[in-house]
């Protein structure tokens, strides 16, 4: 009780001090709120930049897959061999960088990576000596990779526009 009565402001000096204290507290609260907002904005911007990067990378991969499929369709096996190696490397990097935005598609993309590994090995051994069934299978594999990457690209694009991640 003694402490309470002694801590009450008694003159203009005490009242000024108390006022300054309250104003200081309000300023601190305002600064904390501003900092929280700024942090949220920074996180949101970072996410948006990452999504744009993922979209750009998968757009590039889709173009590579399209080229590869075109080479296979035209029977240009030496070019297809080189493109397969490039696509395999770039896809591995993209999956590693953007796995968070791929959701359930990540395991599908990994299975396509396995296909690319087998195709790379096969083409390195006998690019000009493929059987008819191997050529048909190769067309199927490159077509499926192109479809999957194009679909992934579309999903990333719509996710960037709506702000929703895949999966």
């Amino acid at each position, binding site marked *: 009780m003694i402490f309470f009565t002694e801590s009450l402001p008694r003159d203009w000096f005490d009242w000024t001090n108390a006022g300054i204290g309250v104003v200081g507290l309000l300023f601190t609260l305002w600064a904390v709120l501003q900092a929280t907002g700024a942090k949220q904005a920074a996180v949101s911007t970072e996410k948006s930049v990452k999504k744009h990067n993922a979209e750009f990378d998968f757009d590039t991969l889709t173009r590579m897959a399209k080229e590869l499929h075109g080479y296979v369709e035209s029977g240009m096996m030496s070019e297809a061999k080189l493109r397969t190696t490039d696509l395999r490397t770039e896809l591995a990097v993209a999956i590693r960088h953007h796995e968070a935005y791929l959701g359930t598609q990540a395991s599908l993309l990994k299975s396509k990576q*396995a296909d690319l590994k*087998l*195709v790379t*090995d096969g083409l390195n051994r006998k690019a000009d000596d493929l059987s008819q069934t191997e050529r048909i299978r190769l067309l199927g*594999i490159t077509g499926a990779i192109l479809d999957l990457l194009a679909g992934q690209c579309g999903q990333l694009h719509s996710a960037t526009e709506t702000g929703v991640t895949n999966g």
Partner: protein
Amino acid sequence: MDERSLGFVNQLIEKTEQGKLQWSTGFEDGQFKTIVPEGDLVFVVQSNPEMRKFMILDNYQDVILEEEISPSVLQNVQIQANQPKLIMLYNNIGQLQNLVRASALKVNEKLEKAEKFLSAI
């Protein structure tokens, strides 16, 4: 030859017979693969007149185990005498390849369909 290869091949035979693994065609003729969930491991089996091959890939498609056996190697008398496990591995890869081929190409279902078709005409 890696001693563990035979164990893996035998386990794959067992799990495939139990219908626990889904196999699909690879790229080359006679090549089949199965990918475990999440794509962390890939088992590949391949058989053709020149060789029989068994391979395990990791999640980055690096080869972590590979066995490739040519039938001509097995004709070597010394290998026949000293490496019975290599011969066993060769035979078991062949057995596994037959099993996975039936599974990947849905051979039984297609043969049943063919029988039904023939009996219906």
